């Protein structure tokens, strides 16, 4: 089933999915915070585009609202908040040393392969052309988790968390043409509140620990 069989819209969705996967990889490799936030905003934009394309091709009008929400939240509100925070805490130039980048990139690739293998049985099921996107969305979620695990900066962990949310939204939109409206609204509300709480936490950690390095948070333990 090569790519020519799909209609133009489906081809567009597949390319957008590939681009989102690529942005996740970029996030993994990125060391400077500001560029990290910009790439995250780009991923939000790609997600919003995908939602719009699906809304028009399959006539799911309630998706338009969620596309608008994604645009508002993931492209403007959260990145701007993070940027303001980074500048106010003047950690712009902190270059964060990532474990060893090659190993993490290889891990990411393996994750994509694994998520493709894991979602294989589902592919035969769905008649939709966009059934491969489930594998991609699972890959984005797992890459988001990998990002959180591999980096020490609290802000990067938030970006990783938001990247996972993007993966989930992409799964909901691409695999099943969007969840019921009330669920979409609930999820969006939760993401918004989460973003606000992250902001509050940044200030608390900053005041108490003097830096946003997550490894300093290890007083509560049993190992002694």
């Amino acid at each position: 089933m090569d790519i020519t069989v799909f209609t133009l819209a489906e081809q567009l969705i597949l390319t957008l999915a590939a681009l989102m996967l690529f942005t996740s990889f970029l996030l993994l490799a990125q060391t400077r915070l500001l560029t990290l936030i910009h790439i995250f905003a780009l991923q939000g934009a790609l997600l919003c585009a995908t939602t719009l394309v699906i809304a028009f091709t399959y006539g799911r009008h309630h998706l338009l609202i969620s596309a608008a929400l994604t645009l508002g939240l993931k492209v403007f509100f959260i990145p701007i908040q993070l940027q303001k925070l980074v500048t106010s805490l003047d950690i712009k130039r902190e270059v964060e040393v990532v474990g060893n980048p090659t190993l993490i990139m290889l891990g990411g690739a393996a994750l994509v392969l694994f998520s493709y293998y894991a979602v294989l049985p589902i592919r035969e099921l769905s008649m939709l052309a966009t059934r491969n996107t489930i594998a991609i969305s699972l890959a984005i979620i797992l890459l988001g988790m990998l990002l959180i695990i591999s980096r020490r900066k609290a802000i990067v962990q938030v970006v990783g968390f938001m990247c996972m949310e993007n993966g989930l939204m992409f799964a909901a939109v691409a695999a099943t043409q969007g969840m019921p409206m009330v669920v979409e609204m609930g999820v969006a509300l939760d993401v918004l509140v989460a973003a606000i709480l992250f902001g509050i936490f940044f200030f608390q950690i900053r005041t108490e620990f003097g830096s946003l390095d997550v490894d300093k948070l290890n007083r509560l333990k049993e190992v002694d």
Partner: protein
Amino acid sequence: MQNSIFSTYSALYLTLLLPLAGAAILAFCGHLRLGGKLNLLICIATFIASFKLAVEVFYSGSIITPSNFFYVDAFNVYLVLLNSFVGMTTAVFSGPYMAHEQEIGRVKNAGMRLYHSMYQGFLFTMLLALMTNNLGILWVAVEGATLATVLLVSLYRTPESIEAGWKYFLICGVGIAQALFGTTLIYFAAVQIMPDSGQALMWSVLYAHAAELEPTVLLLAFVFLIVGYGTKIGLVPLHNWLPDAHSEGPTPMSAILSGLLLNIALYAVVRFKMLIDPALGTNIAGHIMMGFGLLSFLVAGLLLHRQRDIKRMFSYSSIEHMGLITFAFGIGGSLATFGALLHMIVHSLTKSAIFVTVGHAAQVCKTQSIDQIRGLIKTQPEVGWGLLIGTVAIAGLPPFGVFTSEFLLFSATIKSYPWLVITLLAGLSIAFAGLFRHVQPMVFGDCPKGQIRIKANMWPVALHLCIILWLGIAVPDVLAGWIDQATIMISGKGVL
């Protein structure tokens, strides 16, 4: 017709609206002296509404609102009742406790306002999670519960509490995201066979069509769900946030977190298991739950020996009991399910009573570290005896209800998996030794100089312990009836 709809479901809507309204009101006047009393008043009202709902369900069987949005059946009605009851008794304790904290300056006015509004918000999200029929809203409610309590865990602004809050937020956030992916997969499977996509996420509808769902997708979805909600239950490989979050927040918060929130997450997993079992046929979901349950039961039992903070110790005890209940649900079969449901009730009652006593003990000795808490019985007998009898009850010694459910679980395990009983036995003894090793020196012995009594309201603890004793000696028929209906729904056949 309009008021009839409203009147018939008034109890249901009231139970939900009251805490929501309470959250809104208390957001403004939570810091005043009457904040605690108002909080208690709203909780009492919620309890009365949920009691009325329970009576309705008792007479007319399960209720489902016309919009198919809310669904109350035998499985979640007594959990709703338990939720509001424990919320009420903890509110009785939280009023004077938080007033004391405010006096000694650990919490400022803004913190009090946040505390009281989030207290009600937390109760609202839990009741919503219990009563909603839509699995998506179930996820939103559980996520809402996490968000409501995150700030409360870091209320005291100490480095440890901020660290606990951050860990709680991030780990649960990541965990629950996976649950959302699982719910999406369930929705994906449901859309294949369901014509009307609006109804695809309604649990009652799905339960009716459970056999026709695609097994492989369901199994994959269950994996994501068990890892997602398992993080919220505190199953072992995913439990790391629980001891920090439960021990750093204010004690009433830990009481509710430990007592009720874990039950809600487990309720969600069992709701999904009820969908998956008919579709899959084999008991693979049960085996997964048994694996997780046994692992957390044994590991938490061992970790009890390492504790130096009293609230951390009891949160590990919660992990252990949650592991036991998950193991029981994993075994399936009528006896084990009946035991597990009874264990949920008895565990939350005992654990919230213990946390209330621990709160008072920490205030008497001005510390939470086990080594410095001494001579409780000599200083304040009711706190000392409350803690000792609570620990005896949670350890599963007979006259109390925990033994009844463990007795059922033991007899069920012997019938189906006789060799696992040895691990259960070892786990129980290790946990028992771990708990008592720490509690005994705290309770017995002479009190150190300068340790004085504090104003403590031990009525909630006494009420909880009496109920557990009553459940231990004779399970009332009303409750037994409900649990039995739920067992029939979950495992196919009842016990009575």
